[in-house]
């Protein structure tokens, strides 16, 4: 068993390559059993951060621990799973041989390993391709066999670096289900992604990374933060707008359509009463939570360019 403590803790983790700072003072905590989304544009430092946690790259400064052990510790690595971004494996091996090779590197062997391999091949729907060489696998198949590889040791923490980037919708659904199963089994998942829909569907919590620093954090699936209440009105008299401003910032989206940013759902009936009391027709009203994409773009700011 690994030592107690959160799944991941980092304190001002820093890595530079020459003059380029890839990760700058990364401080974060991932709890045991948590599905954690690590978001950011290309080049934000997500993969470098993940590689430091796996011991593949040494930090230039700062410290951290994984499963209660120092970064790169071998005992901790025995309880980690990892699917790298470009999912490149020895392509002269068959799917089964690749899983056997990686299983042995985890210290597994014999009947236990073979049973585990069969179960994982079935889970990622590759049993019929198990005896084929990886060189003949499609991108999606490689990613699925890579996922199986990351789960060989029944890990306590799994790092997935863009796990769905090569997958078709069915493959994505499989990954989403797998993450759900891991969560149910109490396995922590550290998910690097910029596919916000995927993250929104699977993660408990996300942080946004930009230029090597954490810019924002958001807990998903809990009623918190700002909600947008959009109203379609017969008229928009200034006096009504002034009164609605008491509930939160008001903006006119289009003629006859206004948006009020409120802090909770309970504001909706009160706002409706104000509109009716002012003698204005309330034609439609909708409450919405800003999407992850809206938050993402707001965090990046107007100056953001594609990475």
């Amino acid at each position, binding site marked *: 068993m690994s030592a107690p403590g959160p799944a991941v803790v980092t304190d001002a983790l820093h890595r530079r*390559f020459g003059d380029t700072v890839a990760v700058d003072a990364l401080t974060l905590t991932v709890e045991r059993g948590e599905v954690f989304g690590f978001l950011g544009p290309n080049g934000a430092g997500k993969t470098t951060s993940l590689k430091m946690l796996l*011991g593949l790259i040494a930090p230039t400064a700062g410290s951290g621990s994984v499963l209660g052990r120092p970064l790169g510790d071998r*005992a901790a690595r025995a309880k980690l799973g990892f699917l*790298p971004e470009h999912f490149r494996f*020895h392509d002269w091996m068959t799917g089964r041989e690749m899983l056997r*090779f990686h299983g*042995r590197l985890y*210290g597994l062997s014999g009947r236990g390993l073979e049973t585990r391999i069969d179960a994982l091949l079935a889970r990622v729907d590759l049993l019929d391709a198990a005896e084929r060489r990886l060189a003949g696998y499609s991108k999606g198949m490689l990613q699925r066999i890579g996922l199986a590889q990351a789960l060989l040791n029944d890990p306590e923490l799994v790092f997935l670096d863009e796990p769905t980037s090569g997958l078709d919708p069915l493959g994505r659904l499989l990954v989403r289900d797998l993450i759900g199963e891991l969560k149910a089994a109490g396995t922590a998942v550290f998910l690097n992604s910029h596919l916000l829909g995927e993250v929104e569907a699977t993660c408990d919590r996300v942080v946004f990374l930009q230029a090597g620093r954490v810019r924002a954090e958001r807990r998903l699936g809990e009623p918190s933060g700002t909600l947008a209440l959009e109203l379609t009105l017969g008229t928009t008299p200034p006096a009504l707008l002034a009164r609605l401003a008491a509930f939160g910032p008001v903006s006119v989206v289009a003629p006859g359509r206004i948006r009020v940013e409120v802090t909770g759902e309970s504001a909706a009936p009160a706002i409706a009463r104000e509109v009716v009391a002012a003698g204005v027709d309330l034609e439609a009203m909708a409450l919405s939570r800003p999407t992850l994409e809206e938050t993402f773009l707001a965090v990046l700011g107007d100056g953001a360019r594609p990475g």
Partner: protein
Amino acid sequence: MSLRAVWTIAGATLHEALRRRILLAAVIFGAVFVLLFGFGFAAVRREIMQDGGTPLSLRPVMLNFFVMAGLYAVNFLTVLTAACLPVDTMSGEIASGVMQTVAAKPISRATIVLGKWLGHAIVLLGYLTLIAGGLLLVARVLGGVSPPNLHIGLPLLALEGLIMLTMSIALGTRLSTIANAVTCIGLYGLAFLGGWFEQVGTMLRTPGAGDVGVVASLVFPAESMWQLAAYHMQPVLARELHLTPFSVANVPSPLMVAWAIGYVLVCGALAVRWFSRRAL
């Protein structure tokens, strides 16, 4: 370090050599090489053994000369194969990203280096055994010739191959595949040229040329292992009278063997150190 993990990596290296037809190519060309030598040797032997041809006393020396020529080719093939076999095993897997999932496992980087070294060393020594063994068998069966001191000469050839193999793996942790190949071949060229300078310099009593050779042998001791092997595998008559190009004028000191073994160990240690610090 877990020996089981070392063997897992070595096993995968052997498996790769088999799967990617490296072993097949080695066996086919090794067999062709031995066959070609057999035909040539048989023809030469007929010529030498004809009445009125080569004097009786010189016949064994002449036959040994042709066996030495064959062994010289074995030496050359072994060194080049040792450079090529592992030339992209580190750099290629680092560049492609294959190394990431391997190095993230609960094994040390030293385990990966040692496993790869062991796997490639087994392939190389198998190859050397095949071509040297085949050649010596042909020489014995067809000509009744067997060079002396094979128990000294053949291990020296193996050591020469291991020097190159270890260097190729070590440099592969830092250089790209092509840069590694160019450096390894360049080092061998340096030692090769230095070796000849040393011999010619000694024969002509030109101390400067001899020094160049000694320095080259210290920088890369592969060629001097061949010279020492060649010295031991020739009949006394041939080597003392300098009857063939393989007669060594300046015999490398036994200390050179210790230097070469130390060289392999230092290259191996450097490979581990460099790879352990490498960002993957």
